[in-house]
């Protein structure tokens, strides 16, 4: 399985554009389609992937414990109850931030690749060490942005760095799109954003209040029965 495993970095540069939400929902969707999927929270400082998946009370060990041989990988993985194909692995404790190096992340990713079809890495915001650590764990990348100046600008910087690495393909997701505002030309269009960043467009996700509601409940949209604009895209 290791050879064919897809390790995908989900990054954005700017915070709050929807990396973690996309990681959680993509993870559920992939698991639901039958692929074994691991979501790795590489955001040590401010980790939230556990909350979005409703797994915050079940974390005992982290990837750091696995590398330190305090526990086995299986013990650190938090399996999702409703979606058994999905497992969460928090990278580490916020207090041990300095401990992690790119080689460590690479090692974790290799361990996960032995067991899963997909490894999705939720990258921290910024372009500093946390980003570089997460980058080392992946072969491909999805850049998430909003149709807003600051988000597109930061995405451009991230893409600049990704272009100097071996990561390929690099694809774009435009999140929190408001079609009405685009129609009245009060929001950068999909073509504007894609043209400026010049990446292949993987998908568009509409602004959707249901996302907030599902976050409150810790039940990703892709897990619920009801249909909603943002869910249908994923």
């Amino acid at each position, binding site marked *: 399985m290791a050879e064919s495993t897809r390790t995908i970095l989900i990054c954005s540069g700017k915070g709050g554009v929807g990396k973690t939400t996309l990681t959680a929902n993509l993870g559920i969707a992939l698991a639901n389609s039958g692929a074994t999927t691991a979501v790795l929270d590489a955001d040590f400082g401010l980790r939230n992937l556990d909350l979005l998946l409703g797994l915050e009370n079940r974390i005992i060990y982290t990837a750091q414990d696995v590398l330190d041989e305090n526990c086995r990988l299986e013990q650190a993985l938090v399996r999702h109850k409703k979606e058994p194909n999905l497992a969460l692995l928090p990278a580490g404790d916020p207090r041990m931030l300095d401990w992690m190096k790119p080689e460590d992340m690479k090692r974790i990713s290799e361990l996960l690749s032995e067991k899963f079809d997909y490894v999705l890495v939720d990258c921290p915001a910024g372009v500093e060490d946390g980003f570089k650590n997460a980058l080392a764990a992946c072969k491909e990348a999805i850049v998430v942005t909003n149709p807003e*100046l600051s988000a597109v*600008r930061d995405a451009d910087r991230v893409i*600049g760095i990704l272009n100097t690495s071996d990561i390929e393909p690099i694809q774009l997701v435009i999140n929190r799109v408001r079609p009405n505002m685009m129609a009245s*030309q*009060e*929001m*950068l269009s999909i073509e504007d954003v894609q043209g400026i960043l010049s990446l292949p467009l993987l998908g568009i996700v509409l602004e959707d209040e249901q996302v907030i509601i599902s976050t409150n409940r810790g039940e990703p949209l892709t897990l619920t029965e009801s249909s909603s604009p943002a869910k249908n895209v994923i």
Partner: protein
Amino acid sequence: MTLRDLINKLLGRETASANTARERLQLVLAHDRVDMSSLTTDLLDKMRKEILDVVAKYVEIDFEEVAVSLETEDRMTALVANLPIKRTLSGEIKFKKNDQISKTDKDIKK
């Protein structure tokens, strides 16, 4: 958007904010994408040599007067090469004039 906004827009009294956003973004990215620290003197020298090699295939250049530099104006960075031409290689002296090759920052980027 209210009806008044729509009328204003149709009458061209106010440009849509998406246009403003696009223009501002293009300017700021043009600046961001040129990392001046990555263009070291060594790199600039190498680039200069290669440009001269190409141009020297077609015309004879006054090597004493050659100047290649980076200039930034209005948030756009340009590579400016000033290559005085002595003669064309057919042997015939035609003119001595400053030939400017200007590249936008986009061309410089990798």
